[in-house]
């Protein structure tokens, strides 16, 4: 499936959960300071494992960086 992640088109296997995509996309195992929106809706951490994705879904994966 084709996902739009942080504004860029990315190809992923079908049937991956949100959690799996985030793991692959970010290469991280812990997600402190991170949040995800699927098609403009925030998905809370607990639901990442049970959220399925489909092609053309749009993901924003953000995390804390230094700011003023």
């Amino acid at each position, binding site marked *: 499936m084709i996902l739009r*992640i*942080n*504004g*860029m088109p*990315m190809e992923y296997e079908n049937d991956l959960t949100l959690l799996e995509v985030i793991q692959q*996309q*970010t*290469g*991280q195992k*812990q997600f*402190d*300071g*991170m*949040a*995800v*929106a699927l098609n*403009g809706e*925030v998905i*809370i*951490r607990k639901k990442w494992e049970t959220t399925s994705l489909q092609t053309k879904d749009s993901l*924003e*994966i*953000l*995390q*804390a*960086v*230094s*700011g*003023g």
Partner: protein
Amino acid sequence: MIGKEESIRDDLLRIGDYEFGSRVLLGTAAYPNRQTMLESLKVSGAELVTISLRRVAPNQPGNQSENLYRILRERGFTLLPNTAGCFSAREAVMTAEMAREALGTDLIKLEVIADEETLLPDPHELLEAADTLVQKGFTVLPYTSDDPVLARKLEDAGCAAIMPLASPIGTGLGIANPHNLSIIRARTQLPVVVDAGLGTASDVTQAFELGCDAVLLNTAIARAEHPITMASAIGYAAKAGRQAYLAGRMPKKTHAESASPLQGRAWR
């Protein structure tokens, strides 16, 4: 014995349900390096520090930004996420919701700027975003102009503080319009946190002498020649200004007046 002295020891900054012993809020960006940033935060005495949310870069394991959250939490700082870079109420609200999820806090420094040239807040989008976020349960600290009317509207919308600028972000020009800050201070029940444009210690001291309750700085420290020393200076400046405000300054006089006694002078 000295009631005033005692009360100063208990002079907490209250924003919504939060209480802080320090009246200095610091940003975490634009330092020469992270070590200097952390040391600056420490010597300033800041308890509440701002961060931004940005897109995770793909496939970069253990990247810096993830650590930032943990590092700041481990050191006991309270995090204040901002919505820097948002141009509309919609963007700002979504960013705030992401921040709440990412950081587990209802605190939000609400920035909705009108354009990249001035980085000045958009009064219409800002008020709309503030209104929405208050209804969604956030503790909203809006970065605003020094317009007393907009400040009043933000208070009426349920914000937890007013954060007027001293002068445009990153300029270090100090308090461009002290009169407006005085008017804002006189008309609100909320804490007033001067945000943006403070360039050095005397700007901070002046902000408190005008009655403002806290200050938020970033560039003034990060871009000083010696950031850690400036951070220490700002910590002292806040104490100086706050105490001077509480002390009640002497009235200004047009004509000179001697402190030394006139009576008993010799040779006459």
